[in-house]
């Protein structure tokens, strides 16, 4: 049984259908990436899974329970944690407070402390910034805080929306390395990316979404070498 199963999902903004009949699944322990161009419906997919949007039809099952239509905070509490596009940092709070908010719905203080330590080991840079207002950090550091914060809520599925957006190539490398480390320590990841090359490198499996429907899927390595994907997303001629 998959950790997350999306079945025939359709989502529309008013009269415009952003996602049509999409199905995907994420197995325990995988990194699955959803790649596609601008406006293909990638973020819409994540926002629907995390409850920010209500689907017009279709089902979303997380750990065998149907979650479509539930309020977002309930879904987050059940372990499906979304790092929104543009990072969603609490700019006027310190980095420390941002991390504390990550553990908002947890009560096991000893475990939270351990998770905090683990998150800070992943991102030494974040540790240096703990007392600083999060808004004064660089874009890359903010992305690190956003991921560290999400880790503090102990996600069973971590959904990252464009973690490489607007970051320097070197920072992108760091972020993706950490994504792999997080996955190695047992967290399942659903990654939405425009940077298809990077995403396909770290992911196990991939889905290609185009104008609202899933056009291709398969092992990431296979897709990375397929002509269509290379032409459309990897810039090969």
């Amino acid at each position, binding site marked *: 049984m998959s950790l997350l199963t999306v079945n025939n999902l359709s989502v529309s903004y008013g009269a415009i259908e952003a996602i049509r009949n999409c199905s995907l699944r994420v197995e325990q322990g995988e990194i699955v990436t959803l790649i596609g161009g601008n406006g293909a419906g990638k973020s819409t997919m994540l926002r629907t899974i*995390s*409850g*920010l949007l209500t689907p017009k039809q279709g089902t979303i099952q997380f750990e065998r329970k149907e979650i479509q239509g539930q*309020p*977002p*905070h309930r879904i*987050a*509490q059940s372990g499906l*944690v*979304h*790092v*929104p596009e543009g*990072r*969603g*940092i*609490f*700019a*006027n*709070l310190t980095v*420390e*407070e941002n991390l*504390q*908010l*990550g553990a*908002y*719905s947890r009560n096991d203080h000893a475990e939270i402390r351990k998770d905090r330590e683990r998150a800070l080991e992943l991102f*030494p*840079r974040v*540790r*240096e*910034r*703990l*007392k*600083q207002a999060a*808004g*004064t*950090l*660089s*874009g*890359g*550091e*903010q992305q690190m805080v*956003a991921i560290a*914060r*999400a880790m503090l*809520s102990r996600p069973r599925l971590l959904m990252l929306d464009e973690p490489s957006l*607007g970051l320097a190539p070197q920072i992108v490398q760091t972020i993706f390395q950490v994504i792999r480390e997080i996955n190695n320590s047992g967290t399942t990841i659903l990654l939405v990316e425009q940077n298809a090359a990077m995403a396909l490198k770290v992911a196990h499996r991939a889905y290609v979404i185009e104008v609202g429907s899933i056009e291709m899927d398969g092992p990431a390595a296979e897709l990375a070498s397929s002509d269509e994907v290379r032409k459309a997303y990897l810039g090969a001629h």
Partner: protein
Amino acid sequence: MMRGTSSVGSDAAAVAKSEAAEVAVKGNGWTGLIPIAIGILIALVLHFSLPAPQRSYNTQILQIIGIVIVLAVSLNIVNGMTGQFSIGHAGFMAVGGYTAASITYYGSMLLWGSTVKHGGFLGSGDWLFLGSCLAGGLVAAIAGYVVGLPSLRLRGDYLAIVTLGFGEIIRVVLQQTGPLIEDIEALQSVGLKQLVPPPLGGSLGFSGIPKYTNLFWVYSILAITLVVAYRLKSSSAGRSMISVREDEIAAQAMGVNIARQKVTAFVVAAFFAGVAGGLFAHSTGTVSPKDAGFQQSFDYVIMTVLGGRGSISGVTLAAVFLTVLPELLRDFEQYRLIVYALLLIIMMLVRPQGLLGIHEVWEMFNRRRRKAETSGSDVSPAEVGS
């Protein structure tokens, strides 16, 4: 990138320190009440050390300052911490004030036959008064719940209009109330006809309220308000309110129920506004429909803006400043509004984030010190991200 072991050690120390601070703030059991006890002690000293004629000008001003601080600090929970924009705070104050006034006015008439102040310091009249203020707070809190509900769907300007409308509705409704019942005989022979609309004074206002409010009550309640506001701010509940202000989507992704946080903010703020309304009614002896109006609400909004959103001490300072200033300018009556407006404009130009931004007074000093400490370290200044 990694710093030396010594700095890791200092980091651990800092964590331990911040945890200790958290324990100190949260307290365990009764120790958390110490700040409130200190506040009440100060209130007692104030009450007994100031000259006896309670109605002296300075005492009156001191009372009003305390009440205004309660109003501004409570509004700050909605406008500053949670990031909603309410300009109907005076409406909640009036709801509380009228509720409390009708309880003490008609209550003491029924209990003691007249509306004259009953009993000495902490006598039976005082307890009736305290109960009426709490009742005022509760009724205002219910109103806060009702007004908080649209905040789940409305944002920014639209929410502001709803809260503005609430204040105006309260004002107009209060204008339509019937005349007061002035003595015990009339009250005993009252018929249903005189109770619809309720006898709350109509557009002339509710007057003749026994003046139970004194410095002790004002500053005790102020102490409680400040401690509650501060502990709320430094608690997980307060942080989740601030997260709603900062980014609703990210807050939801952290499992914060933003609907509940918004309504809670409205309810808590309205409760304190209602209690302050009770204090106000029993301080001047009158409360009138215009006290619910836009002008009053706006004064409190200005205080939260000047003080800095979310800064309790900043808003407190702004409330003191903006209450004292018009009094000082009383001699220059005709220039008063000009100076007032000019000060506001200058403030907006020079420090748009408010006096203290989101920080507290003492944090400003800490920050300066920390900056001095870290200026020599290897931490490069962060480039500001988008």
